[in-house]
């Protein structure tokens, strides 16, 4: 149970941070038009309820959903591809939920980056790709690590999206607490899992604060 939760949270963290980095890059460094488009893509999902977003994924991915309907209509598939009520659905839904949260720390790290460093790199003869990978990415790493920790902590305690998109099959730890308290009254186990979660989350948050403090002082 804990292993599965950690595996899902790890995958979700990787996917969210990678996606957030791509869109934050355009949000911070794009042309004004690109920035506005990126801002909408980040903020609209951010402000919309987690239920609406999970429901959107159900509408897309379920057996009668848009993707399966389309795949069968075009004759690419005869049987619907199972994409919800399994880990895939949970990971997609959680990644979607968490990308905006990952964008904010990454974007603020990118904004804080001194423009002159990039100019210096160019002056020293680095190409675009080289500047991005050897200067830009390493210098925004603190934001990425901060984002990864935040996403991981959020993902651990999360149970709405897994409950809707997992359909009870790929149960995450937090969802198990809910089931233990309400469906099979086993308060002891529910409480024990909660305490474990608090300890893990507490340790990760402490790591986050320890990590952020020195970098703030340096900045």
């Amino acid at each position, binding site marked *: 149970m804990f292993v599965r939760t950690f595996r899902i949270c790890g995958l979700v963290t990787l996917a969210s941070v990678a996606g*957030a980095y*791509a*869109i934050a*890059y*355009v949000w911070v*460094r*794009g042309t004004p038009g*690109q920035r*506005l488009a*990126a*801002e*909408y*893509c*980040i*903020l*609209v*999902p951010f*402000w*919309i*309820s*987690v*239920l*609406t977003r*999970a*429901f*959107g*994924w*159900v*509408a*897309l991915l*379920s057996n*009668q*959903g*848009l993707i399966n309907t389309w795949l069968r209509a075009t004759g690419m598939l005869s049987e619907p591809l199972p994409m919800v009520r399994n880990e895939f659905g949970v990971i997609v839904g959680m990644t*979607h939920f968490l*990308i*905006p949260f990952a964008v904010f720390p990454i974007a603020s790290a990118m904004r804080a980056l001194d*423009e002159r460093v*990039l*100019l210096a790199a*160019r002056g020293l003869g680095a190409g675009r790709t080289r*500047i*991005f990978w050897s200067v830009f990415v390493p210098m925004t790493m603190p934001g990425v690590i901060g984002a990864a920790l935040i996403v991981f*902590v959020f993902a*651990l*305690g*999360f*149970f*709405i999206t897994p409950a*809707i998109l997992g359909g009870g099959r790929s149960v995450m730890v937090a969802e198990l*607490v*809910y089931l233990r*308290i309400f469906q099979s009254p086993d308060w002891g186990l*529910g409480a024990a899992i*909660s305490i474990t*979660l*608090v300890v893990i*989350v*507490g340790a990760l*948050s402490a790591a986050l604060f320890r990590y952020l403090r020195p970098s703030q002082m340096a900045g």
Partner: protein
Amino acid sequence: MNGYRPGPVALLCALVVAVFLLMPLLAVVPVSFTPSRMLSMPTGGLSLRHYRTLIDDPRWLDSILLSLRVGVVSSTLATLLALAFSLGIWMFRPRFAAALVGFVLLPMIVPPVVSAITLYFLLTWLSGVGGFAGYDTWPGVVLAHVVVTVPFAVVLILVSLSQVDRRIDLAARGLGASTWERATKVIVPNIKFGILTAWLLSFVLSWEEIGVTLFITSVNAITLPRLIWMGLRDNIDPAIAAISVILILITVTVLTARIVHRRARGRE
């Protein structure tokens, strides 16, 4: 400035992410117009029947009204509490200020399930002793939402307090203002925008709150997210798509208004 625009590869990656982010929101739109009773793509004609359901079925209207009431009351309480706390920290700078702030921010870090269980036990206990705000009552939901939203309001108010010039307060004190006058006539007017933002954020958080609400309500106090949740769990009701489209439209409108407003201010 901005010597480096994203190249084509970066733009392509961002586009993929953008599509990923918007897709589920767009997918809801056609589903909400389906004439069928089941969740499906509209085949044949379009229909507004699921929007009618929202008006005709009292459950939807009741839950919207309940969510509005809970949202207004709980965000007002949360903002007042957060304001009192932040003013205390800012004006008197107590010795354990950092520890106090950390303590108040705890509910933000604790996983929602854990807050939910704690509040569930608290509220069932309150109903047991005949409290006003018990399990499955709207004051109970308000109480729980206040607990969940106060940390966010505190953060916003503390941030706007940190931008207030302390010398204004010193001047007021030098001119003989009492503590109450300093707070209400000097500091609060300076942070009114922060207070308003804190209220709005608390309202939105309460309006969308589901994790904790799920634990502390059953049949009487059904907020809008709770009703959506029930519709999602049983058999998926396309009325959810209709309400989702309305919520998405409200969000986009508010965001656009904010962006336009910011532009207008930036140009002044």
